[in-house]
């Protein structure tokens, strides 16, 4: 496991959506925040987060995790998030 912080998660967002323009400090960043973050983009993003953190989300989490805050919650549950 490789715990992530918010800065690293923002880097992963940029890596997953290289063309996207968004406010990195937006507390509500999530699916729909910019056009590239659609359901397929969300799937790609979660796989990237899993790989970077060395964790695996459940089927339910893969379906329901749709925002940066929700991703952080999933990571916290696995002790894979540091502030």
């Amino acid at each position, binding site marked *: 496991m490789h715990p992530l912080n918010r800065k690293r998660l923002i880097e992963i967002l940029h890596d997953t959506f290289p063309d996207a323009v968004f406010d990195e400090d937006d507390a509500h960043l999530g699916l729909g925040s910019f056009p590239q973050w659609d359901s397929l983009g969300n799937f790609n993003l979660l796989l990237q987060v*899993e790989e970077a953190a060395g964790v695996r989300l459940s089927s339910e989490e893969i379906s329901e995790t749709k925002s940066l805050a929700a991703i952080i919650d999933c990571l916290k549950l696995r002790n894979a998030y540091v502030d």
Partner: protein
Amino acid sequence: MRIRLTCTSFLPDRSPAWRQLAGHAELDVGGYGDWPAALCGDYGDLTLVWVVFLDDLLPWDAFLKDETRATELLNEAIAGALSALDRRLEAARAPTLVAWLGWAPDTPIRSARRLRLREMAAARLSAELYDRAAKYSGLYMISLDALFAQEGMRHCLDSRNFYASRCRLSLTGLKVLAQGIDSILGRIERAASKVLVLDCDNTLWGGVVGELGVGGIALGQDGIGNAYVAFQRIAKTLASHGTLLAISSKNETSDVRNVFGQHPSMVLRWEDITAYRIDWREKSIHLREIAADLDIGLDSLVFWDDNPLEREKIRAELPKVCVPEPPKEVADWPEALASLDSLASLTTTADDWHKTQQYRARAAFVSEARTAANAEAFLAGIGMQPRLVEIDAATLSRAAQLCAKTNQFNLRLARHDAAAIETMLQQRSGIGFLVGLKDKFGDHGIIGLALAVPTQQTDVAFLDTFLMSCRVLGRHLEAWMLAQLQRRLRLAGYRHLVAQFVPGERNSPAAGFLPAHGFIRVSEASALSTPIAEIIPAFDGDRHDEPYIANIERWTIPHLELFPNAPAQS
């Protein structure tokens, strides 16, 4: 190149896994299960990658209803899928890659006494695909069973992803798939490296021979010595498939020769080594000289050395040389060498088996030619016996290989694959042949290719491809080849041949060929009634020099006296 990716289930568009394919071209990932439309649709000009999961093809409902018809249903499902592939292969002008997976998790008990139905189906699919590869030169296969096994099936497949998004693969699986596609596309675009340059101490054997003596090095017998033997076996296997072996060692030549001559566990023989530099100079000098000996570019060399400092120096000084990073454990080297993409070819032609001998012959020719007092007299005395070889099913892959690999004497550097050559000859009524050569230095195999195609002006042909392996340059064999082409063009009713030289990075040896062999500038002739842009495909007046033309009836080709069997000139 544009690539269309289609799958029997789903592959996620915009996945970072596909980024490694960006170097080839634009990628278009199809939607869920859109493969029948992709195979049968109008994508003939796009490279198509079809990812097939056997599970997606199986008619599960019918299966469960009537298990007695299982084999029949399986065969029907596979035949149905392959009929769509056949439509693609008949129409496609661009490569088709099929990546397929037959594996599914199971207990070993069910296959302990009998072959399972699934295994039979996977074997049938595989056999059918390879049968088609023999027929269609533009078809390439990727066995995902083999590819994923290296990474671990459970790491590559992900049933959670399948139920979440219909994608059967994990991110790792997507990356491994992309890597497999990248390897094949890379090899279609660029030929394999020709030479494996090996260090000796701690590379071909363990220890320093200069300190330990022949009897003290680790080679064979027990433990890690066997890993060096296995590494040599892989190098020898590569050599038998056409890779040339060379040695670059900071050592005393006598020490190295003694190991080759005296150590009972040496797998490589001195005869396997095509070129070598064994002295205390920098290895960058060794590699430059080895490339010059063999008359090949530095980008055809792969350098394998245990010493990280030597590797770094070569990377810095000779960036064109491929320098793989060997695994830390010598025990892992044989596998790493065997898996090296840069030395892997798509096909092995009959000529590949004799490469070492052919390059040794080249070295002997260069050495004698250098000291000959009279070059023409020397060439007249080497007993050249050129031969024409037709391009057919047996030799088509050699023609494509020459197109891909020949850099120096290659007039236009057109990199045709086998399918394109076939189309040129059969559908476009082109004239083409290969050339082989024997002389006192040995049988050089098939080393030349000429392809001429009709043009908008019926009495004018265009010289699409005219190339010769650097192994036989310096013999004026190009003149003989031109005379054969002249004869064939005359028989086909042509009156003129238009040709051009397209300069590339390394084909300067072909630069002055046309004017030196009876061609004149098109502006100096009055033969063309059709604009040059309609004669030469993709002609660019800003980028290309003025093309040349030869009058087939009045064409005087020099140097033919060296070939008594050449056709008489009119």
